[in-house]
């Protein structure tokens, strides 16, 4: 483990930024193109994880543990959000017999 991480010096920081930008964008595309509420939720999780990885990379880059503490808080927040969100989706399914988000279009007005 120690040897593995000491050899990590070669990866430039901007490659981490590009990777996280691409994965965040994949999450955005998922939210834009899918209609299944649960898949949209999973795309949001993907975006959260991209941000987590970038925070960790910056934390290692600037040698500051606060970044990793923030990631820990984001994970706790994501767990709470998933629990409430899935409960709402189950309620929507129980009332409309569908998880198509277009059923909820009356929320727009």
């Amino acid at each position, binding site marked *: 483990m120690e040897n593995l991480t*000491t050899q990590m010096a070669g990866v430039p*920081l901007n490659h981490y930024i590009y990777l996280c*930008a691409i994965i965040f964008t994949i999450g955005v595309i998922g939210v834009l*193109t899918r209609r299944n509420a649960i*898949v949209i939720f999973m795309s949001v999780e993907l975006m959260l994880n991209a941000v987590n990885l970038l925070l960790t990379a910056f934390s*290692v880059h600037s*040698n500051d543990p606060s970044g990793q503490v923030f990631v820990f808080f984001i994970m706790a927040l994501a767990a709470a959000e998933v*629990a409430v969100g899935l*409960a709402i989706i*189950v309620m929507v399914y129980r009332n409309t017999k569908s998880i198509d988000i277009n059923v909820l279009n009356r929320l727009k007005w």
Partner: protein
Amino acid sequence: MSTQVFYFVATLSIIFSLMVIFAKNPIHSVLYLILTFFTFTVHYVLLNAQFLAVVNFIVYMGAIMVLFLFVLMLLNLNNETEPSKSPLIKIVGVIAGCCLVVTLVGSFKAASINSPLILKNQGLGLVENLGKELFGPFLLPFELSSLLLLAAMVGAVLLSKKDEVEA
């Protein structure tokens, strides 16, 4: 050698996350999402953030993904019930996403942060170091997050409880 590990795992993350949003069956989406999170755990290990690697493994892959799978199984969703948007909206969404990634990558290229990532302190991401940080300056947010989790638990139970017939 280890930089090649990073590029290999990064490619895998991108492929699996693409599969998440393009898989027709929501069950397959969840399974690909688990694989994506596994590659993220490998990224954390490569950054020597061992505490985050373990938490990611337990919380995301263990708890959150089981919750997703459980709800999908509970609602009995499969290919037939899967709603799909018109091809036009899909194409427009993909084009919008490509515009976003081009903008992001272009602006980061202008910033040109290409200093290599060097782990200066080997013990940065270990439990000992993060525990001192978490119970020192971040004690109040840590305790507040426990309140948040309690509120979320009560809210989830209250939301998914079947309404009693009002007499």
